[in-house]
């Protein structure tokens, strides 16, 4: 159901697939969290993954990013198979992710949090000092971009939750990800910050980065995304531009149980 957008579904008939899954399945005990999910995200666009609670979105996320091994199915990135690869290989493949309950390194400083993501091409590089000017400058640039550069020396556990969210986002950017997956970026933050994050996402998307965002905040999803996938009971039930998906009866049924 997800090879290409169905005719009349909207403006994005032509797209380049970036992240895609085929028949992805994962069960926990007797519960099928993901049930043969076929999903294709569009490269260079802002993709959103929505669905009622318990529809399997976060499990889907974790399977794609290597945190959980799927029982069956494949995950590909522009055709390259990345199924069940360990998370650090997924990161090396150019996929960065954030976590649902914002995760940062509590006892490291904000700057150190950033330096973790520096990519190392060789063993020698790993043995070299972590505080070299190039890396620090890059980190500072990203911190400036999200607006928390003045907190550089603070321990990450001492800054506010909103600031931690921004730190997490900046940290993900350190790995130069071509594809960025955000798990509920608007969760638990005030409207001003939601707006700020939305702007950042748009800016980064304009630079060519693909986004896959799991989100409950419908305003954000509808205004931000180009392509929406709706999950229910472990599989996608509708797909397309926000305006179309919004009115799809299957989506309404999934959310309202109507």
């Amino acid at each position, binding site marked *: 159901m997800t090879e290409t957008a169905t005719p009349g579904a909207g403006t994005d008939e032509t797209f380049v697939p970036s992240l895609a899954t085929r028949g992805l399945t994962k069960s926990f005990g007797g519960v099928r969290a993901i049930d043969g999910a076929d999903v294709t995200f569009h490269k260079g666009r802002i993709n959103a993954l929505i669905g009622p609670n318990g529809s399997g979105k976060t499990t889907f996320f974790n399977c794609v990013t290597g945190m959980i091994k799927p029982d069956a199915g494949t995950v590909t990135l522009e055709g390259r198979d990345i199924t069940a690869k360990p998370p650090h290989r997924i990161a090396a493949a150019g996929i960065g992710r954030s976590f649902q309950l914002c995760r940062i390194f509590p006892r*490291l400083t904000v700057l150190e949090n950033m330096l973790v993501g520096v990519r190392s091409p060789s063993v020698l590089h790993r043995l070299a*000092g972590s505080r070299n000017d190039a890396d620090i400058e890059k980190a500072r640039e990203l911190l400036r971009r999200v607006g928390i550069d003045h907190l550089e020396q603070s321990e990450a556990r001492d800054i506010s939750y909103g*600031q931690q969210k921004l730190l997490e986002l900046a940290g993900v950017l350190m790995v130069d990800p071509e594809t960025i997956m955000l798990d509920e970026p608007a969760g638990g933050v005030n409207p*001003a*910050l939601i*707006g700020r994050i939305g702007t950042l996402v748009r800016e980064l998307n304009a630079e060519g980065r693909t986004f896959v965002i799991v989100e409950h905040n419908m305003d954000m999803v509808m205004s931000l995304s180009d392509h929406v996938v709706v999950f229910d009971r472990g599989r996608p039930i509708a797909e397309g531009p926000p305006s179309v998906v919004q009115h799809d009866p299957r989506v309404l049924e999934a959310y309202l149980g109507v």
Partner: protein
Amino acid sequence: MRSASDTTSRSTFDRVLLGARVVALAVVAVLVLTFPSTASDPFILSVGVVIASYAALAVSWNFVGGFTGYISLGHAAYSGLGGYATALFITRADLDPWVALFVGALVVAVLAVPIGIASLRVRGASFVIVSIALVLILLLVAQSWASLTGGAQGLRVPRPFGEDVLRPEQHERFFFIHVAFISVALLLWWAIDRSRFGMGLKAIREDEDKAQALGVPTGAYKLTVFVISAFMTATAGGLYALWFGYLDPIFQFSILIGSYMVLMSLLGGIRSLFGPVLGAVVVGYSLEFFKVHYGDSQFHLVALGLLLALVVLFMPDGVLPAIGSLVERFRPDKRTSIREMTAEELLEHNERVETARAGDAPPRERDLATVPSNQEER
């Protein structure tokens, strides 16, 4: 940003701090190097060697504990193995004692690879359980395999220095050897601490899943530092074997010794360079003190238990970091969080934000909880 005077006063503080650290280090170095000459009798000297041995073990343990946060209570497995390996390479393979020490430690490091692969698959308390299980099983094996280890009878280790070298002289030599080992170990710890490898390890300690998601190859990193730690611990164990001259399974594969390593590092400061050394000096001295004054009674266990409990409950970060934060309180003009901005500074800051927004630069909203923002247009 910061005014010129802020920058100057800040670096003055830093310079003073650096100076104080250098002086302290110099003083400690002098004290350590002159210790053998100032020791009043050979017994004191031997206590010094014991404490130095504890310090060597604690520093070696801290490669895993401090960097990755994985607490190994059974690390005596590696010092025990190092001791026996050294002894056996001397007695069975006729190797020169110092070569035997090195080769023994190398063998233990190789063994640590499969052990590490198995143990590091689990985290947290499971890892602790596994480490305990390891040392307990080695204890069983060492006690039972009498033909190899001498079983409960123990194993004699030939002295590396000739018979004509007197005891006090032996103590002094081993004291300096231990100090040299500790210095090398600390240097290695420092090098790892400032490297990207170390950065990755610390990320693992703080949030292993997150570190993975950022591209840190956690499995390889953990195993590497684990093997390094095993090598160092085995060397420390081998040094002890060479000095003490006698190995007994119960003391070599002792959970108690393992707990000393943990306590010393925790007490001194598990994430600091000199923490384990400080902890070793404090705890080691106390242990010897109790043994002298309370002899065979198990009272030192009670003291150890209570001390560990107190450290865990009230000072889990250790002494050195506590001193560190105390010193930081005196730092002038700290600008660590928005909470400390005065009203004037806040106004100043808002103005800067407005001017930036007027230009092409993207708006930089510092702290959206306090700075009035204009709602972003969707």
